[in-house]
C-alpha cells in the first residue's frame, strides 16, 4: 500500500464518523493544550521573577552578617541578628579590585507618624552610594547626601508607597515626619520601582546611616552591605577577594558573614519555579493520558464494527501488515490533528492569560515540539493494540462475523 492510499483510507474512515472522531480528538486537544499552557505560565513566571531580581541590580553582591545555614536557604538566615559587620569593614571592601561602589545599610522597622497618618515600615540608614548600587531614581527633591551623614542630620527620603500612605493628598516634600519620636524633614521622594515583592525600596524610608546608627537604633553594626561590581563576569572573583579580605580583617578562620550574589537568589527561585512548572505539567499530562485511552477505546470499537470489512480486505489479498498499518494510521492521524489543534488552543490560552496581565506567559518552542512528539507517540502506543488485533483477525471468522 502506498502512503497516498493509506491517507485516503484514513480520511474516509475518520470522516464517516465525524462526531466520534471529533470527540475522541477532543481528549488529546485538551491534554496538549493544558500542557502547553501550564508550561508557558511556568516559564512566564520564571522570566518575570528573573527580570525583577535583575532589576534590583544584576551585578550586586550582598554581604550579610552571620552564616547562611546550608539547606535552610537565604530567606531564613535571620538577617541582622548577628552583629559581625562593622563600619570599619566598609573601607576594606571599597579597596578591593573590581568593586565599583559599596552601600552599607542598617534597617529596622519603626512606627512612623506624619500629620494625622500612621504607618509601620522599614527605616533604612544609607549613604549616597545606595542610589547607584540599587538602580533607583529620585522623583522629587534629593537623596541623602554625604553632608547629611557627617552632620547626623534629620533628613528622610520616602519610597513611593510610603509617600502616598503618609501624605495621601499633599506634596510630602519639606514636611516633617516623626520616627521613634524624632522629627525628620522629607527631602526627597523616589520613583516607584515595582516588581520585587520583598524588601523593595517602594516601601521604605531612607535616613542617613549615621543618624540611624547613633539615634534610632543606637548600635554601630551594619544590617548588610550591598556591593556593586564593575564587571558582571568578575562576580565570582570579587566574591572570593571580599571573603578573604573580611576574614583577614575580622581575624578569624571561618567566615562570620555571608556573601550572596544575584545568581544564588535566582538559582534558588528558579529551582522552586521549575518544580512548580513540572508539577503543573504533570497534572496536565494526566489529561493527555486519559485522551490516549479514549483513542484506544474508539479504535477498539472501530475494529469490532469493521470486522467484516477487515475480512473482505484480507480475502482480496491484504496482508496482516496492510491491515495493521491502516488502523495504526487512523490512530496516529487522530492524535496528530488533535495535537495540532491542542497546540493552537494552548497558545491561545497562554495568550489570554498574558492579556489579563497576571503573568507574561512564554510558549517555548521546545514545549510545542515535545507536545507534538508526545501526541504522535500516544497515537502509536494506544493505536498499536487495536491495530494488532485487527491484523490478527482470521479472514474466515471475520467474513462470517455479524
Amino acid at each position, binding site marked *: 500500500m502506498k502512503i497516498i492510499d493509506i491517507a485516503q483510507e484514513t480520511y474516509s474512515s475518520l470522516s464517516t464518523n465525524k462526531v466520534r472522531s471529533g470527540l475522541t480528538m477532543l481528549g488529546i486537544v485538551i491534554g496538549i493544550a493544558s500542557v502547553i499552557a501550564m508550561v508557558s505560565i511556568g516559564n512566564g513566571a520564571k522570566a518575570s521573577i528573573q527580570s525583577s531580581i535583575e532589576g534590583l541590580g544584576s551585578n550586586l553582591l550582598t554581604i550579610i552578617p552571620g552564616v547562611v545555614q546550608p539547606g535552610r536557604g537565604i530567606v531564613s538566615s535571620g538577617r541582622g541578628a548577628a552583629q559581625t559587620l562593622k563600619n570599619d569593614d566598609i573601607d576594606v571592601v571599597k579597596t578591593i579590585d573590581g568593586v565599583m561602589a559599596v552601600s552599607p545599610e542598617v534597617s529596622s522597622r519603626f512606627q512612623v507618624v506624619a500629620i494625622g497618618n500612621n504607618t509601620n515600615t522599614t527605616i533604612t540608614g544609607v549613604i549616597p552610594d545606595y542610589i547607584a548600587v540599587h538602580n533607583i531614581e529620585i522623583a522629587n527633591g534629593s537623596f541623602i547626601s554625604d553632608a547629611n551623614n557627617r552632620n547626623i542630620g534629620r533628613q528622610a527620603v520616602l519610597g513611593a508607597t510610603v509617600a502616598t500612605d503618609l501624605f495621601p493628598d499633599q506634596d510630602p516634600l519639606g514636611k516633617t515626619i516623626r520616627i521613634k519620636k524624632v522629627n525628620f524633614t522629607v527631602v526627597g521622594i523616589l520613583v516607584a520601582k515595582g516588581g520585587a515583592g520583598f524588601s523593595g525600596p517602594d516601601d521604605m524610608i531612607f535616613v542617613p546611616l549615621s543618624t540611624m546608627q547613633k539615634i534610632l537604633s543606637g548600635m554601630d553594626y551594619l544590617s548588610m552591605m550591598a556591593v556593586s561590581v564593575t564587571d558582571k563576569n568578575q562576580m565570582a572573583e570579587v566574591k572570593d577577594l571580599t571573603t578573604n579580605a573580611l576574614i583577614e580583617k575580622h581575624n578569624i578562620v571561618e567566615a562570620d558573614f555571608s556573601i550572596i550574589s544575584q545568581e544564588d537568589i535566582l538559582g534558588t527561585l528558579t529551582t522552586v519555579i521549575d518544580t512548580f512548572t513540572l508539577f503543573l505539567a504533570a497534572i496536565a499530562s494526566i489529561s493527555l493520558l486519559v485522551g490516549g485511552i479514549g483513542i484506544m477505546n474508539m479504535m477498539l470499537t472501530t475494529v469490532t464494527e469493521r470486522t467484516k470489512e477487515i475480512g473482505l480486505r*484480507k*480475502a482480496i*489479498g491484504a*496482508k496482516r501488515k496492510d491491515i495493521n498499518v491502516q488502523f495504526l494510521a487512523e490512530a496516529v492521524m487522530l492524535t496528530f490533528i488533535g495535537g495540532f489543534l491542542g497546540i493552537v488552543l494552548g497558545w491561545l490560552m497562554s495568550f489570554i492569560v498574558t492579556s489579563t496581565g497576571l503573568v507574561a506567559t512564554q510558549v517555548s518552542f521546545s514545549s510545542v515540539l515535545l507536545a507534538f512528539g508526545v501526541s504522535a507517540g500516544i497515537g502509536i502506543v494506544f493505536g498499536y493494540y487495536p491495530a494488532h488485533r485487527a491484523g490478527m483477525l482470521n479472514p474466515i471468522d471475520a467474513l462470517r462475523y455479524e
Partner: protein
Amino acid sequence: MIEVKNIKKTYKTGDVEFEAVSDVSFSIKDGEFVAIMGPSGSGKSTLMHILGALDSPTSGIYFLDNKDVSTLSDDELADIRRDKIGFVFQAFNLLPRTTVLRNVMLPLVYAGIHGIKRIERAKKALISSGLDEGHFFHLSNQLSGGQIQRVAIARALVNNPSLILADEPTGNLDSKTGEIVMGTFQKLNEEMGCTIIIITHEQEVAEHADRILFIKDGKLIEDRTTHIKRIIDYEKHNLTI
C-alpha cells in the same frame, strides 16, 4: 489447473474431532464453469475456504496453477488470493459509503497498481460485469441488489484472477435478479474464458454450470456434467439493470 488430492479438514472442539471435509479429490480445467452443491453443513463452505486459499487443509494437496497451496503461510496465502482468486460473496461485502469505482479498485490497492492504470482496469471490469457507466461514481449503498452483485463481480474480475469463486452469489437476491447474475457468470465464462466455481445449495442455480460436484457429509458423492444446461435467454428476460 486446479487439482485437489485427498483433501481433509478436521476441526477440534475440546476433545471432539469433527471432519468437515474428508478425502475429497477432483480436478478442474482452465475455462470450466463448475458448481459445488450440497445441503447446509455438508462441508461445501469449508471446501470453498480451502479452494479460496482462505484456509489450509489438515492433510492432502491442493494445486492451483501448478503451485502447491496447501502448505503456505498466512502471508503467502494472502498473495495467492490477491493474484489468482476473485471472490464473490453472498452478502456482497462492498465497502459502505464508498463509490462503486473505489470498491472495484480495492484489490488493485493491495496489488500495487497505481494511478490511471488502476482506474482504467476498474472501469474495464465494471463494463465486463455489465454495470451501466452511469453508476460508476454512485455510492455502494445507493444501488439495487443486482447492481451491487455486479460491482462485486467486477471487483472479483479486476486483478485478472485464474479463478473466480462465488459463494451463494444469488442467496440474497430475488429469483429474477439471481438469473441475471447467473447470466453474467455464463457470459464471463463463455466470452472471456474465466474459470468459475459457484457454491450453492440450489439445484436451479447449479444447473447454469457445465459440471456439478455434489458434496454430502464432507465427501464427494457425485461428479457429473450438466445434461440440460440452463442458458439465460437475454431476449426473454429483457436483461437490463
